[in-house]
């Protein structure tokens, strides 16, 4: 064979080998990355499952290295890999990038324990609670680490009137954060303040309007004509940490309310069972309220949920004793 | 020249044979590694806590649970028209037989359960020399877990030797 042909032959075969091995290596790297992402999202989800035992608990989750996690519409995802559905109800920014996460969990009672809500964020996000004379007491309560929001979140509070004067200072103080979320608690939020805050580059503004003095139910105004109800304080807290309207609505309509229905059905069945076993009339009384709660849905007024929950709690406390044990 | 060429071929053959031997060696090494993944049988603190909680809460007679029976036994009083200490022993025998079963067989030397009232053992079952035996084992870890019925009424202890 001519030497030239030999060299050409050797070159072609050599290139084929190189292409083969490089392609194999890339495939292997891709598979390993997929595996690592799946393991990461699975172990994170399992960590949430363990935390769900707690009534009220906060922890720092350290990934060990810079990690990008995304939570969107009930799905967990790491990097660009396939997402994994989670049963846990998570209120957080859609994209979280960093070495650590702060996770806080609270049980949602209505009036019995239904499920846990998880609030997640990291140091790149800032939360500013704004109050006026109608909401000062409530905001003072929830921003007190001994009462509600843990200190690790470093939430700050501002009087709405004073905020107008300190506007430029506020804008420059928080410009280094990925996002600043202003949560405006008021029975009648001022549109001019909301509009000014919305003009800040990295800001998002929501208003929380209570249904009554207790702040147990009401409306969350996500601006741009997007509103949703909240039922119970844990859900109000969720509005503080959630990134956007669509995720809040998903958690409300596709997760929390179906869960409430599921647990209520368990108690309806238990009440029927107890009634047939013990022949106590009180079970009929509580069953009526349980059925009413079961039939409420996302179109119902938030006040109905809270009123029915309070009725259930009172009936369970006052009408049951040692002869006829309570339902919950 | 011919010899040189033959020599070159021999070296080439040798390299190939060495490569094949190395690959077979690596395969044998991995194939002979023991299979991991047998079920972990270590008993956790959680399971011990759950066990004590479930035992003491369990209804023994009428509306009385085991904790109340043990309290009566500590005061040498009757309960449900019976000797409370006898009732305690019968209940513990039944409960532990269901919970631990064969693990309490002294010949297996795995588990020892006892109840002390005022530093006196009022009930024991299993292998009583477990502590000494375990400490003498090279990889043995003596794991006692106690639960106190307060105030200073009784102490229930389950001891295992984990290797």
């Amino acid at each position: 064979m001519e030497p030239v042909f030999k060299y050409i032959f050797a070159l072609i075969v050599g290139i084929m080998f190189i292409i083969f091995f490089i392609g194999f290596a890339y495939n292997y790297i891709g598979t390993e990355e997929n595996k690592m992402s799946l393991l990461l999202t699975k172990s994170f989800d399992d960590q949430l499952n363990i935390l769900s035992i707690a009534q009220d608990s906060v922890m720092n989750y350290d990934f060990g290295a810079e990690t990008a996690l995304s939570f969107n519409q009930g799905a967990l995802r790491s990097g660009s890999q396939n997402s994994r559905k989670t049963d846990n109800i998570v209120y957080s920014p859609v994209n979280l990038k960093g070495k650590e996460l702060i996770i806080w969990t609270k049980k949602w009672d209505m009036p019995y324990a239904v499920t846990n809500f998880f609030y997640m964020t990291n140091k790149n996000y800032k939360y500013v609670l704004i109050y006026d004379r109608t909401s000062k007491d409530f905001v003072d309560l929830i921003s007190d680490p001994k009462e509600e929001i843990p200190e690790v979140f470093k939430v700050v509070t501002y009087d709405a009137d004073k905020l107008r004067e300190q506007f430029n200072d506020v804008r420059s103080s928080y410009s280094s954060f990925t996002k600043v979320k202003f949560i405006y608690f008021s029975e009648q939020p001022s549109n001019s303040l909301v509009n000014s805050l919305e003009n800040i580059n990295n800001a998002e503004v929501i208003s929380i309007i209570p249904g009554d003095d207790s702040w147990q139910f009401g409306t969350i105004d996500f601006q741009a004509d997007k509103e949703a109800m909240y039922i119970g304080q844990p859900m109000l807290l969720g509005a503080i940490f959630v990134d956007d309207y669509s995720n809040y609505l998903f958690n409300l309509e596709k997760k929390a309310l179906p869960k409430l229905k599921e647990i209520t059905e368990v108690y309806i069945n238990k009440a029927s069972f107890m009634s047939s076993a013990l022949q106590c009339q009180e079970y009929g009384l509580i069953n009526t309220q349980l059925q009413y709660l079961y039939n409420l849905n996302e179109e119902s007024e938030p006040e109905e949920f809270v009123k029915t929950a309070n009725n259930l709690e009172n009936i369970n406390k006052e009408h049951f004793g040692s002869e006829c044990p309570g339902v919950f | 020249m011919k010899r040189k060429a033959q020599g070159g071929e021999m070296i080439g053959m040798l390299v190939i044979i060495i490569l094949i031997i190395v690959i077979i060696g690596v395969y044998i090494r991995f194939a002979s590694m023991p299979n991991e993944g047998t079920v972990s049988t270590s008993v956790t603190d959680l399971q011990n806590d759950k066990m004590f909680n479930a035992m003491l809460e369990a209804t023994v007679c009428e509306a009385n649970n085991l904790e109340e029976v043990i309290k009566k036994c500590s005061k040498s009083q009757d309960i449900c028209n019976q000797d409370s200490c006898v009732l305690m022993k019968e209940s513990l025998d039944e409960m532990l037989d269901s919970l631990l079963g064969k693990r309490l067989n002294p010949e297996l030397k795995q588990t020892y359960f006892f109840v002390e009232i005022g530093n006196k053992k009022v009930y024991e079952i299993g292998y009583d020399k477990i502590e000494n035996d375990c400490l003498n084992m090279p990889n043995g870890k003596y794991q006692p877990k106690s639960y106190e019925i307060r105030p200073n009424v009784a102490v229930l202890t389950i001891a295992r030797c984990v290797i």
Partner: protein
Amino acid sequence: MKKKGMIGMMETFMIIFVIFILIGFGMYFFYKFSVSSTITEAQETCELSSYEKLLATLDLPGLQCSFKASPKDCVDTAKLRAFIDTKAAENVGTQACTMKIVFKQIYPQPGIRVNDTECTPDKMRSPEFPESCGKWTLKVPKEELTKNKAARVSSTPVSLYYPHIKQYGIGQLEITTYTYT
């Protein structure tokens, strides 16, 4: 000359052939090792997951005892029965791991005839209860998901509460995970 050339080409092809065989062997062993290590990892993740599932199951609001809305460390069997009957139990479990979840009654000891009997509402209302039945099956995987898989059982004792007779018993929560090895 021609013959020498032919022999030379044959030698080249022989060498390339042997090299391909060696690469083939290498790929085969690498693949086997890689697959078996992934399976082992999946199995370990599954076992760990079953332990976490044990903890989480015992504290499910749909199962846990509550008195005047305060939780207590036991499983309410009336709620457990309702939880199973309302199909809420179908949502319990992890995506990656096939699991069977059963609550077994061990004290008072059910008789040998009934220890494998499911505690239906009728059995729970019968005068012999709790000795009339032996278990509550929360979740059973489909048969095709458990075929040719190894079963591993994790269990923990649990306090069972019978609200209609106001008594407590002892049970065992058993989670069986099905993996490939």
